[in-house]
């Protein structure tokens, strides 16, 4: 399975220096404003910016209860330059089985007076999905939900 079938890269110029873009990412109050699109409300539960640190966000619509959104673990944190986190681990490198396995590599690079911002996101490949399909529903709610979740999942 070629990598281009399972990974994606988004890059764009942001008209503010890396220190400011980093601030929008690393401050819970700021992150909550853009991480999930309105009107869904985002709550940043944990944002422990160090390797092994927790990254957890929750979401809710209207007056409902907050529901799980993302639970991940930071792998690498380089101030104002690079953030790497994965959903296959949680706080303290605890192995996890997320709905959507992914590793995200976020980079902040100075470009003129602004920032070249990039998000490279690695997923498990489609072959893995098919393998899971063959295994069926042994785990209770099963593969189809995994695929559905992968299809609809907001990030995680």
């Amino acid at each position, binding site marked *: 399975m070629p990598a281009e*079938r*399972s990974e*994606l890269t*988004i890059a*764009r110029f*942001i*008209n*503010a*220096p890396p*220190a*400011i*873009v*980093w*601030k*929008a*990412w690393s401050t819970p109050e*700021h992150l909550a*404003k*853009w*991480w*999930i*699109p*309105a009107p*869904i409300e985002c709550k940043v539960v944990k944002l422990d910016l160090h390797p092994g640190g927790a990254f957890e966000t929750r*979401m809710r*619509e209207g007056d409902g209860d907050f*529901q*799980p*959104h993302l639970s991940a673990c930071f792998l690498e944190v380089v101030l104002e330059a690079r953030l790497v986190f994965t959903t296959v681990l949680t706080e303290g490198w605890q192995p996890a089985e997320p*709905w959507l396995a992914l590793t995200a590599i976020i980079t902040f690079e100075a470009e003129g007076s602004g920032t070249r*911002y990039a*998000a490279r*996101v690695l*997923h498990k490949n489609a072959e893995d*999905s098919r393998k899971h399909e063959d295994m069926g*529903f042994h785990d*209770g*709610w*099963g593969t*189809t*939900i995994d*695929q*559905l*979740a*992968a*299809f*609809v*999942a*907001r*990030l995680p």
Partner: protein
Amino acid sequence: MENYYAPLDAAFHALADPTRRAVVSRLTKGPAPVKELAEPFAMGLPSFMKHLRVLENDGLIRSKKIGRVRTCWVNAERLNAAEAWLSEQRALWQARTDRLADYVETHLSGSMDDAG
């Protein structure tokens, strides 16, 4: 742009609840009447119906009432669309990146002094 991607968030929200996940899981094995679907859950029918409505509104399931029995089934088109998951993910990250840029440029520009 944002409006276009909102249904993805809604669908994810629909699956974030364990009762709704269990319902979809059951329905992937075949259609079932509401009464049968509700059986495993310790909640009143009105509460259970709310869960079904969330799933149906988000397009994950369909239902039809024949006589006095409402039968539900999973929306196969939505399941088949899972093949498009990578492009959905790309769209989601693109939208997220654009929101970050908008937020930074609108609310944080000129805040260099306290950027620390």
